[in-house]
């Protein structure tokens, strides 16, 4: 191997990383559940991105709706219409944008908080770690929906509602990540290379960012996919309870409008059926994908499968 000797350390690292990604992808492709999940995710990502091409945004307005009221699915309106004559298909397509956007943004917040608190509570022994661990425990115990409701209610009305919902879901959803990352951090901290780093005088920040973080990253990634599904569910539930953004259509908002719009007494199943199915499919997609990632990245699970 004369070629490798000429390479710089950075190039070696890059090649190694590329090989690892390649191996990971080969494993992932073999996982049928994971591939089903990934296809669902790709499909919905496409729908959300291409919404302006797929459906006219005018169809979201109550006043500009053209369809018949509460028509069951037909060729013109594949998903039927609501009580204002809007096409449910149009609302579902545009709703996917808000639902996915809120889900992803809230997940980013939850993952950043969860990873920070998880790593710090595992790294810092003594009072700091203890307090952070306690905080995690508290947030794990407190039921999330009542907490989210209370937070959403007291949020300043000047903040756009959609931002408020994102923050509320992010702030209530980090605890299980933190718990997971903490456990992983504790096991990493025992390894010799951290002892070496400490012996060479590495500071806390260097240890955490250069040694612990890269090692918990795969786990964070797997957990992120699972958290997205939780966040999308939370958004749907909050919107259904009337805490969502009243100006933007999301899947939860459609369900809320259907519920308060006498969907039960008229039995118009398409009005809740299609948006509901989308929620379930997306959540299922992220769950399947996350579970597949966990199986591949967590050696403990791999042995068993």
């Amino acid at each position, binding site marked *: 191997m004369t070629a490798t000797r000429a390479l710089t350390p950075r190039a070696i690292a890059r090649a190694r990383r590329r090989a690892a990604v390649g191996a990971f992808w080969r494993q992932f492709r073999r996982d049928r559940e994971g591939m089903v999940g990934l296809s669902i995710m790709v499909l919905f990502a496409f729908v959300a991105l291409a919404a302006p091409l797929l459906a006219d945004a005018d169809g979201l307005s109550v006043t500009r709706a053209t369809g018949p009221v509460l028509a069951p699915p037909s060729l013109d309106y594949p998903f039927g219409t609501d009580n204002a004559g809007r096409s449910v298909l149009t609302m579902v397509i545009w709703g996917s944008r808000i639902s996915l956007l809120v889900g992803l943004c809230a997940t980013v917040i939850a993952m950043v908080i969860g990873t920070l608190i998880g790593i710090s509570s595992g790294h810092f022994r003594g009072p700091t770690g203890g307090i952070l661990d306690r905080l995690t425990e508290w947030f794990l115990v407190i*039921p999330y929906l*009542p907490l989210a409701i209370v937070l959403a209610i007291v949020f300043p009305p000047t903040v756009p509602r959609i931002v408020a919902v994102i923050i509320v879901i992010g702030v209530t959803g980090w605890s299980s990540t933190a718990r997971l990352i903490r456990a992983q951090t504790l096991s990493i901290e025992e390894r010799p290379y951290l002892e070496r780093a400490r012996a060479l005088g590495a500071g806390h920040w260097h240890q955490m960012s250069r040694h612990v973080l890269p090692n918990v990253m795969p786990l964070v990634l797997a957990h992120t996919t699972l958290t997205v599904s939780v966040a999308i569910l939370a958004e749907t539930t909050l919107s259904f309870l009337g805490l969502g953004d009243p100006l933007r259509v999301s899947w939860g908002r459609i369900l809320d409008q259907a519920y308060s719009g006498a969907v039960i007494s008229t039995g118009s199943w398409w009005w*809740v059926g299609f948006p509901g199915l989308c929620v379930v499919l997306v959540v299922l997609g992220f769950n399947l994908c996350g579970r597949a990632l966990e199986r591949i990245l967590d050696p403990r699970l791999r042995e068993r499968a």
Partner: protein
Amino acid sequence: MQPAASVRPAANVDSGGAAPRRRRALSPREVGRKLLTACATLLFVVVINFFLFRVIPGDPEKAFSPRGRNADPERLRQIREDLGLGLPWHEQFWAYLKSLARGDLGSSWGEREPVVSVIADRIWPTVLLSGTALVIATVVGVWLGARAGWRHGSRFDKLSSTGAVALYSVPEWLLGLFLVVLLANTGLFPAGGMVDPRSTLPDALDIARHMILPVVSLGVVYIAEYSLIMRSSMLDERYADYLTTARAKGLRDDLVRRKHAWPNALLPTVTLFFLSLGFVVSGAIAVETVFSWPGLGRLTYDALRGPDIPLLQGLFLVFSAGVILMNLVADLVYPFIDPRVRRS
């Protein structure tokens, strides 16, 4: 809904700390420590409850007043006084704690009654509904999961795990909404509520009839959850040494499963059962809303529509306290049923 990751049983040993080796299940000191932990958690909830509703931007008295910004000045002054808003915050907090200790949660605006009595009126329907769903789901879910885990890879396992993962992605209330929209118009099931004044059935039967759909929608999702938990703890136990010993003794497969694997696999499930109660609360809120079930969940929804801030505050406190209490019970009971926790 619970993050799917927690379906995997975490360490089945309580994280409470390293107790020294001893015979007794729990020493008084440990009980004291656990009580203290629970109280600290409760205090945290109280602090959240106090500060969140007082850092409301603008004037808290306006946020707290039933008519918002158009409330009459006399009423605003009254609320200011009730909340003690003129005082420094530590005195406010102390006053709040004192009224909490007296069991006074303020009075609801919507119902014009003390929050405590409004909540007390609605607590039993919730316990009845969630309790029934939980009991059914635990029995069925544990049975399904144990069977699937034992015959890992069999057709039964594949079918039930796929079904469970799919159902796990369905929020309870959404399932309920599907069911009620499809079935309410057939006349077989009522569209909501707990009793029908026009019904000719005896009261208990009438309530049972109203309970079917909500219990099914809660139960099915919990069954999925518990069966996944039970399945994976069964998988963990499947190749344990003591099972090899049992098999080597010549026990039938069936006996090995029932007498040896089952009880051990059940333990992590018990822990997670109690830990998932917080999510049961969340599920109940939305399901009760869908079915207009007159419990705490529906009360929350109605309080939101107001919004009835004192009532919401009280509900948050009650929900959290309930979950904390159940966790404490789990913590205290667990060492009795799992001796490994005592020794670890």
